[in-house]
């Protein structure tokens, strides 16, 4: 991936937490680039600093060393080019689903007349048109995550930062949402940086998978996924070669000997 076309780029990013003797290095010298329209997954053991990278990309805190770039602009704080989505849906309970989807647009100062049609279109795409006026507690976990995805897409970001967005869902709901996400990413030609623990999910959704080491987190391997149907994970799941990728990732992560 050449840096010239990168939507998201980390250059030698190190992040330490704490002060003086008590510092913990979360990530160390991480360099990576995600190209336009590319979906890159990041896997690694728990606590290896995956979410730290995501927060740095979102501009929530700065790297201790190195730089992050979004659309070739150095990230110095929160910016409108990225939008993130977490395992928790983070829907505001006092807002209807429609108002939740409009939340980011509202913060960006988009007028109500413009917000409405954008939210309506995304709600329809996420099969939530009938739930627009309901409140989050009235929806199932899968529907709530769809609403969170709609809210993420509503601000039309260059890069989607996804931090285990489906890990709290049951297996079937998860597969359906993966399919929806993949198709949406294709249709909108979005770039995504995807953090997950689920090796199959990483392989079925991504163009490339990056593997991180235990803390301090470093990128130890990059695996291009040479499988068809990136936009149809349900199809990709059936590829016999998928098992080989998963096996290789298991070996890299040393799953058998991992501390649980």
């Amino acid at each position, binding site marked *: 991936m050449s840096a010239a076309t990168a939507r998201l780029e980390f250059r030698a990013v190190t992040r330490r937490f704490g002060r003086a003797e008590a510092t913990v290095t979360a990530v160390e010298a991480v360099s990576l680039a995600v190209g336009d329209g590319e979906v890159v997954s990041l896997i690694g053991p728990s606590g290896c600093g995956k979410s730290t990278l995501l927060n740095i990309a979102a501009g929530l805190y700065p790297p201790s060393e190195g730089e992050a770039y979004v659309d070739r602009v150095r990230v110095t704080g929160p910016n409108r080019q990225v939008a993130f989505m977490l395992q928790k849906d983070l829907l505001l309970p006092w807002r209807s689903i429609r108002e939740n989807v409009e939340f980011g647009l509202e913060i*960006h100062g988009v007028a109500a007349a413009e917000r409405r049609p954008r939210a309506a279109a995304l709600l329809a795409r996420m099969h939530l048109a009938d739930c627009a006026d309901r409140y989050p507690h009235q929806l199932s976990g899968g529907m709530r995550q769809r609403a969170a995805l709609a809210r993420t897409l509503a601000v039309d970001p260059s890069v989607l930062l996804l931090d285990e967005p489906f890990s709290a869902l049951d297996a079937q709901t998860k597969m359906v949402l993966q399919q929806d996400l993949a198709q949406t990413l294709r249709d909108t030609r979005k770039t995504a940086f995807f953090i997950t623990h689920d090796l199959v999910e990483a392989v079925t959704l991504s163009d490339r998978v990056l593997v991180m080491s235990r803390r301090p987190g470093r990128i130890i391997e990059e695996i291009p996924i040479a499988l068809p149907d990136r936009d149809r994970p349900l199809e990709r799941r059936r590829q016999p070669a998928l098992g080989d990728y998963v096996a290789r990732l298991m070996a890299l992560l040393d799953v058998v000997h991992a501390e649980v």
Partner: protein
Amino acid sequence: MAARREDRITGSAGGSLALLVVFLAVWEWVPALFEVPAFIIPPASAVWDEFVRMLAKDRLIHHTLVTTATVLVGFALGALLGMVVGYLLGMSPRAEFVLSPYILALQIAPKVAFAPLFIMWFGYTVYPKILVAVLIVFFPVMVNVLGALRSVDPDLVNLARAFTATRAQVFWRIEFPASMPPLFSGLRIGATLAVIGVVVGELVGGNTGLGYLLVFGEGQANTAMVFVTIILLTVIGIIAYVAVIALERWVLHYMPSRSLETV
């Protein structure tokens, strides 16, 4: 389902009403059976007669309105002050750290003990009563608001920040609405405490309000008058509480109804 639920509510309302009739009957006749004198427990009918007499002779409506108005003003000011201080301290952890021992001390201090002091300061006016109510309502509201701001999910704040929200936007769109349920728990407590604050103020000094009638009735050994006053004070407390609940239901309409049911 809905019909059955309604039946159940009608059924329990009927039960409550029947219990009230039984209670009134026991109150009317049982003390006499055990030869309890009327100056200890006057029968229900005597309390009713006293109520009618007080309406005509003792300006009962005037005193009730004075107490009600004082409760309202004290509650409103105390709640407002509690909210303002709660939100300010909530947004400034440093100020909270500096002030917390004093807040704790004031919170432990029995607020009604300030009543004589306030009367010394402001005389036999309405102000000491309002002040006791303000002081007593202030703490549960402030503490709940502060606790609510402390327990806002930091990921929600980060979500707003990642969308480039300003500090003011984070407050008005995340922290303030998130603090509503605990704020209303504080207001519910405050609504009943406000009545206590005002009554204690009136008991200690003054010549208006139900608290004054309470002392007056005691001085006259008029037990029925004391009963009437206690009942009216309870009614004021109930109205204040129900008003807060109604407001809470309206503001927190988005909450699952179950979480609002338990009083």
